[in-house]
């Protein structure tokens, strides 16, 4: 999937990461959102048995969007780690936040609910993988 020009319009800076470099740390605070311009990013969840890969994202995918769309706190819910060299576009967080905030309450509720459900089912999958070890 390539990055649409619409999305590129939000990119305010670019960052490069080497293989295995940490982009986002689970539990840290931050709500900026990235779009993958080149390369792959692994999303990992902390379990007592170590880090567990739950998803692999590629070009055009977003990283860090969950913290932005939740309305409660902006703690990172998972690790994002470079899988090979990666180039990321940092999205204009002020503009994104404004656009998000200007959505009707029901739309915001619907989407933040979706994000909460992802966290629940990701946690559940992680717990089960751990239990099965």
């Amino acid at each position, binding site marked *: 999937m390539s990055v649409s020009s619409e999305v590129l319009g939000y990119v305010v800076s670019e960052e490069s990461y080497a293989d295995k470099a940490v982009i986002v740390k689970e539990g840290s605070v931050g709500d900026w959102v990235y779009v993958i311009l080149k390369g792959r990013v692994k999303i990992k969840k902390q379990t007592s048995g170590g880090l567990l890969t*739950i998803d692999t994202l590629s070009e055009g995918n977003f990283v860090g969007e969950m913290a932005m769309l939740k309305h409660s706190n902006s703690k990172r819910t998972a690790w994002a780690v470079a899988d090979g060299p990666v180039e990321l576009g940092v999205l204009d967080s002020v503009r994104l936040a404004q656009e998000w905030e200007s959505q*009707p309450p029901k739309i915001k509720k*619907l*989407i933040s609910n*979706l994000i909460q459900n992802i966290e629940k*089912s990701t946690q559940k999958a992680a717990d089960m993988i751990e239990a099965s070890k």
Partner: protein
Amino acid sequence: MTKTKGKNPPVVTLNYSKGDLIIKEGDYGISIYEIISGKVGIYVESGGTETSVAVLGPGMIVGEMAFIEGNTKPRSASARALEDCCLEVWHPAMLLDAYKKMPDILRLITGQALKLIVRMNKRVVELSLKQGPSKDGQTQELSDQWTEERKCFRKKVSLDCVFRPVNSPKKVKLIGRIRDISKGGLQMTVKTSGLLNYTLASGDELFISTNFTLDQKVNMTAKVARLQKENTGDMISLGMVFTHLDPDDRRRLGFFLMP
């Protein structure tokens, strides 16, 4: 059971009892529900087993995935009342305009989130099937209780219909009027003088055709469960239970019944 607040399009609240099915996986439905009170369990079926993928409580939304997918796909999971529940039903028309006007980037992010949750739910189901029924009752065999018909929205209508007993010649066209209809059946009234030489009794099966909208013809097969003479004498009222509906007709009915 229903209460209408505000107007155009109305916000409806529905009450469900413990064990009631709210959404059935595989159905076509477009309503979105917000939980006002009670707990709702989300289940995905695979290989005859239902796996719990989430338990949702007050303030949370049920049924949003079909909306985000543009209502083109059937429900990806079932939702069941784990205790007595009150839900507010949102008609998607309330949200569609706003969703369309949303900046592309927010829609793209939402789309990615949706794909992720579908994949995560699938993973939970695979894992729980591999591990077998767990102690906390995460999975369970489908039983009668879990496959029972969903508690339906019964809609009051006044629809002309034509019908005939299933064993009568195709050209027979008797006239009736449907008074209310749900996913499980309907109630209709018939003028006895219009029955020609036919008599109707409990247990009789009828072919019924009607139009939900001008150009949308729907065929149904239903059995007479209850037969009652109206006070006026010339009218009988038939309580009917569906015995057969084609998938397309079932879908049309689903849309028609949407709160």
